[in-house]
């Protein structure tokens, strides 16, 4: 994560917690997310 200093550009946006970052590469959670993602994309495709 960046070195955030008051009143600088990077001071304001939200940054993920360690847990959030861990979940981004957690295999079990990401397999679930993969399933959800595919369903979302397929729903989108079906709208055409």
């Amino acid at each position, binding site marked *: 994560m960046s070195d955030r200093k008051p009143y600088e550009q990077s001071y304001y946006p939200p940054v*993920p917690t360690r847990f959030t970052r861990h979940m981004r590469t957690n295999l079990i959670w990401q397999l679930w997310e993969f399933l959800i993602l*595919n369903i979302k994309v397929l729903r989108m495709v079906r709208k055409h």
Partner: protein
Amino acid sequence: MARLVILGAGIGGHTAALHARHKLGKQHEVVVITPNSKWNWIPSNIWVGVGWMKPEQVTFELAPVYAKLGISFHQAKAVSIHPEGNDKSATPYVTIEYTDPSKSGTKETITYDFLINATGPRLKFDATPGLGPTGNSLSVCTYGHASETAGVLAEMIERMRKGERKKFLVGTGHGTCTCQGAAFEYALNLEFELQKAGVRDKADITWISNEEELGDFGVGGMHIKRGGYVTHSRIFAESLFTERDLHWITRAHVQNVGENQISYETLDNEEGTADFDFAMLLPPFSGVGLTAIDRDGADITSKLFAPNGFMKVDADYTAKPYEQWKPTDWPSTYQNPDYSNIFAVGIAFAPPHAISRPMQNERGTKISPTPPRTGMPTGVMARLVAYSIADMMNGSEHPTHESSMANMGVACIASAGAGLFNGTGVTMTMYPVIPDFQRFPNTGRDLSYTSGKIGLAGHWLKHILHHAFLYKAKAKPFWRIVPE
């Protein structure tokens, strides 16, 4: 027998050719004219640009595929369209100039009954002095550019390993660029590759773009549900950049790309400079420069094309302020209003206006994104236009299939680092592409279809799509199962 001629064999032209060939009986002819001998899965050029893939992994030769399918293939560039024929014959035709090395420069005419313009863009590097691979910056717009960029990046990494500090600049090289998503994806991949190479602490990465706010992506940004809030993609994008220690300059028009420094002006009328050792800056786009001639030999280019060189279709091109823009301004059949046998898909069609709010500074410099219409929307338009033409060849008087970007959803998956177990991808879904504030007050889009996520799953999906689209483009068995 009728003949369909398709100009261009990118995502739009090639998709149209495959579907048209599938729909039309053998009595009809499908002809593809494209200056390139290879098909390129352009979204994966990002991975070529960071050295994770080689050009051979994102391209293949078109000729064998077209030979297998019974599609006539001319490796040539289209020069002019003659929609009324000439004084000797009323049959419309196009003039082409071969780029095929065996007959390079030879000109020929090819008649058509139906024409699809899917020529994609001209990359206008000349719009900004010093921009582009022949100037002082790099690009990932073609696999050749991306490969060159990867070579320069490898050199930079070597020098950083020896202790040198380097400045990287990624974004858009002009105030009217589009495809911010591609540059955004490159910035994230670049950061990931520098981490992987162990030299991230030696690199300063700066994003520069013509977006009013980060996360605009040329579609005015989007709202997503996140953490119990409805949040704008600006927050999402700023968070991604902050997490990776990327700095950003937005609302910027790059005026000049010097050897190691760019100069820019902003919407706020400020002028600035930014130093770089490595700059990957996208160019603005225009049409490829086709001309149109009527039967008497008079130039009717302005009748067929908008001033930016893109082809006019069934859109409402009435000039109007942002407040009066309507989703119904956008085309749905992609048929030219003057010549019912001519269609344009993908980047080649002239949009009625931008999607992001148009902006300019006090000097009058336009600094706002032009509308993206690549990838998934292009493929969808191409399929539906091919179906319409197939029906028209079989007797229908009008296009039978419609799909406006105002009723179309898209999924954009931006890789944020390639790795089977440690990679991540940013997945954004959006419906509709053109915001509709009457149907969806406050956000312009349906929040149940519009989302943004980051994680390994996005990378897996991006990787799978890479292989699936190459499989489909090669027209291997059951290719039609793979959606656009």
